[in-house]
């Protein structure tokens, strides 16, 4: 962000205040805009039932978006997260099917996510591969594992706890949403109150300085990807609870793309060092709002992806234009 140029007059100062407000709350403003536009187009979109659906649908997107955010903030990238969700879901579903108690199944899923994170972290942090290539490779491998696990066939979950998480509520708030908010809370606390959090942002901001100051950069990189992997696993658990049918199509590149879109629209920078939990949650709501509302509006599911793509392109173009304008005024 550039410092304001010495300006003359009150209008310039006020305009600048507005500009800063817009830049700071872009995701919220976009969401508001979207809500207003769609509400005018069709009041059905803002019915309570629809809003409730939107928030529920946003839950798994939000958690995966947080996973993506964490890696992006550290200056990295994780392409394997999409299929990673499928892998963890299959692990959980498969374990339940062979009769394992629920905690064991869930733990297996988390372990799978963490293991994927460990491999990514070692490739990027220790071997020094560029994150794009490293996670491209792990993505291919995970795709294979997903196929392998999927050979067990479609699993239908009938576990009562899972059913409660999927459709139950606590004081009117769906469990899915509660878990997602808890995950968001944990991410927030880690970002604000642990050295791991500070160092993750530092890594994405200026890795060289971090090394010069003696921060254990390699170890932190591994931690970043492992933490992200755990969040990937939690996304999988949420999805399993939500749809209760587990097969290979439970998650894929589309899921990952939604997550990326959500966190980038939420203000996370692709270059690292910037990203907020608040923005990511709002971004997830936005993506969910688009998908869910368009369905309500009777728009065919085929068009929904088109509109999502349109929003991403629009967001990306707006961001580029803002940055171009900032550069000119600096």
């Amino acid at each position, binding site marked *: *962000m550039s*410092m304001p140029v*010495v300006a003359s007059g009150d209008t310039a100062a006020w305009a600048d205040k507005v500009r800063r407000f817009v830049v700071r709350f872009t995701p919220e403003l976009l969401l508001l805009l979207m809500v207003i536009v769609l509400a005018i187009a069709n009041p059905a979109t803002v019915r309570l039932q629809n809003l409730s659906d939107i928030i529920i649908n946003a839950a798994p997107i939000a958690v995966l978006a947080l996973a993506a955010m964490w890696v992006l903030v550290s200056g990295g990238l994780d392409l394997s997260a999409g299929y990673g969700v499928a892998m963890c879901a299959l692990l959980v579903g498969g374990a339940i099917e062979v009769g394992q108690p629920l905690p064991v199944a869930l733990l297996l899923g988390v372990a799978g996510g963490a293991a994927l994170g460990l491999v990514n972290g070692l490739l990027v*942090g*220790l*071997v*020094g*591969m*560029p994150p*794009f*290539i490293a996670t491209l*490779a*792990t*993505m*291919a*491998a*995970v795709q*294979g*594992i*997903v*196929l*392998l696990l999927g*050979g067990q066939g479609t699993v239908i979950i009938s576990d009562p706890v899972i059913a409660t998480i999927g459709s139950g509520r606590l004081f009117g708030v769906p469990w899915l949403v509660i878990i997602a908010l808890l995950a968001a809370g944990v991410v927030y606390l880690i970002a*604000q*109150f*642990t*050295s791991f959090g*500070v160092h993750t*942002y*530092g890594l*994405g*901001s*200026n890795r060289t*300085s*971090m090394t*010069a*100051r*003696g*921060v*254990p*950069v*390699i170890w932190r990189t591994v931690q970043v990807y492992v933490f992200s992997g755990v969040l990937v696993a939690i996304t999988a658990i949420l999805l399993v609870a939500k749809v209760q049918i587990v097969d290979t199509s439970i998650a894929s590149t589309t899921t990952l*793309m939604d997550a990326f879109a959500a966190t*980038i629209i939420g203000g996370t920078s692709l270059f690292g*060092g910037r990203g907020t939990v608040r923005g990511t949650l709002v971004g997830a709501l936005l993506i969910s709002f688009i998908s869910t509302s368009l369905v309500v509006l009777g728009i*065919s599911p*085929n068009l*929904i*992806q*088109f509109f999502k793509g*349109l929003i*991403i*392109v629009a967001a*990306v*173009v707006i*961001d*580029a*234009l803002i*940055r*171009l304008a900032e550069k000119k005024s600096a």
Partner: protein
Amino acid sequence: MKELKSRAVSLARSDQSRTTLILIGAILCSGVFFGVGFPGFLSSYNFTNIAVQTAVISLVAFPMTVVIIVRGVDLSVGSSLALAGVVGAMAFQASGGSSFVSLAAIILAAVAVGAFNGFLISVLHVNAFMATLGTMALARGAATALSGGNATPVQSPAILFLGRESLGGIPWSVIVTVIALIVFALLLQKTLLGRWLLAVGGNKDAAIANAIPARSVEFFAYVLIGLAVGIGAIITIGRTGSAQPLAGQNLEFSAITASIIGAASLAGGRGSAVSTFLGSVFVGLISSGLSFAGVDQSMIYVYTGVLTVLAVVVSQKEVTADLRGNVLYLANSARARASRRVRASMGGGNAAHTLEIAEISKSFGATRVLKDVSFDVRSGEVVALMGENGAGKSTLVKVIAGNHAPSGGKLLLDGRALELAGPEDARKAGIAVIHQHFSLVPDLTVAQNLFLGNELRAGRFGPLRRRLMVAETQKSLDELEMPFAATDRLSDLSVGHRQMVEIVRALREDAWLVIMDEPTSALSSRERDRLYELIERLTARNTAILYISHKMDEVFHLCSRAVVLRDGQLVGDENLDAVTSAGLVGLMVGKDVDSAFTHVPSNPGEVLVRVSNVGDGSRLIDASLEVRAGESVGLVGLMGSGRSELLRSIAGLNRVAHGTVEVLGADASHASLHALAKKGLAFVPEDRHSEGMFPQMSVAANISLLWLRGKTTCGWIKATLERPEVHKLMTRLGVRPSDPTVAIKNLSGGNQQKVVLGRWLALDPKIILLDDPTRGVDVGAKSEIHALINEFKIQGAAVVVTSSELPEVLGVTDRVVVMREGSTVAEFARGASEHEVMAAAFGDHKRSSTASSTDDIQKEVVR
């Protein structure tokens, strides 16, 4: 024979060719392995199968490699392929069954997507990953929407032809792929556009500084992908008999993998069509072989992943170097962390210390940079370290700060020998060098930056005590009366304030000696005053400061003593009450060295360049200059005086906010470098690394880059034309080694500079602007460059040379123009003494002061 051998060696050394060879070997080995192990593998049927499977991937991977070469990526190819197919099927129905319309629509749709990507990325400067992620969704969505989610069967034989038919047993899809391979290989190796692609990807700044239309080149790369995707869509329709909205799933990742295995570097500037093809074939071969071996498809995916990792580790040397470094780092960091300690307050600096520099010498190989330098620094003193460029100041600082071990002599702290194994040890000894780029993190707050690596916690594993850290930081800031808060984000602070954060950090880590290297060069005058105030407070707390500066007024204002280096030796340790600025200049410059520089008399003709009162709105304020044909003019001044800016303004690379620049009689104040180059102007930039050379490209490619522009037939490079020109230039300049195929990054600095010069010389320019051409160049190459300058003069060109080495400029040029603080202030004819010129460059310390003038307020740029 020797030529062949050296060629083989250079081939083996080049990352790209090494990978190609390794891939060929790997393909042969796996072919043999699977062929022997599994019957039926080595059959023409199987090979045809593999070829067909990999055809579309290879087809798309070629332009993907091109895009990767220009530092981009395209994630939308799969979706674009599906969209093109769907559009084609629709067009077929809409046009009542016209295959021609359908085929045209397919190609147009794919190219449109490519052009859209190109627009987003090269015009709007959107990040390639994000942009193509967006178009990926857009295209896939459009394909699904337009087709209603269903596959549309296509029955026209003309459309199905490419995907279905064969010629002499070879499927057309394979033939098309091979043709594409040849086209792309030729494009990259034999056309001017190919050179431009490699140049833009290898060093975009240099490409722009050499008048290459970088934006158009990037845009074109994405359009090329569109074209290939269109053809791929046709092939895919032919294979399946229908246009499917879900076609091309994961195509982008397969194509990128093929490119990467083929050693395309994501950092740009490197890639080969042949290697990409081999990469694609290799992956196809392995998949097929594993399939024959009965391995499950899922595991084949896993092996592909592992293969990609191996390929990268093997082909990208930078990666393996990293690995070794990282393992070493891990081993060392445990030790380093244990011994680091930071106190919560800044108490320690009050004890008195003395650092004695005792006969320090430093050599790098055969070059001696420091010789027997001795002086000391005590707590509470502000000592200036002065000297011309190359006098050895930075090396001395690096020795004191522990970055270099001295070759001779030693450091003594309070009388005891000080052994520094690295900068950590220097910090522990209380010596801190202020450079903000290497130790501050922009996106964190001041408090977070100060406590980085040593955060305060509640207990051993508890949460961070943020309020405490902020309070502690604020206390330090208040103590030093800093004009910013502990909770301010570093990126919101100006350059001057960031510097101060560095200083506060140094003090918190118990530094008693703070070394500042030209700290005010990037500051506004208000920030400068603040820094001076801070320095006064520091000395009041008994901190010692070693202050490197060339600004006389600063030195006399802040310091009590001045230590002067010249040619690596200490020539003066003066009390500033007893010496004048002229005296200091005299020490720095020494007596006039007999110029070993040859000079040729000039015969000046008409005025070719006329600069009148030019300013650029920031560093350049008011410069005027006239240069005639057949003369060489030296442009001198201290760092930051505006010399480079002036040259760049003449060359069209820097803004001309007011005043005029006339080149060859015509107004050139807003002309582009390209236009000026066509008229005969040459500009060799100051920093060859950032703007001069394309490190991965060969010497030949570097030298011929500009010259080729007029000499190609429709973009085709005739080797028979290029080679003799390159040879001629290399001989004329004396570039060593004489092998033109060596990558320029492997040459010495002097030879690199000669190549960069040669590139412009090939155009026979009439006006030659050289920005510090002998910087970082050895003595031998320097004199060769001087001889060249004389040669240009004799041939009637107008030459302007800037240099930080005064003797050089005085010896070689016909007259010298001095710049100071953005304006041309003096001119000296040949024969002036170094002393006179330096005095003009430094100005008199008594005149200028720290008071802000209206000029200063206007040029205030708060960063």
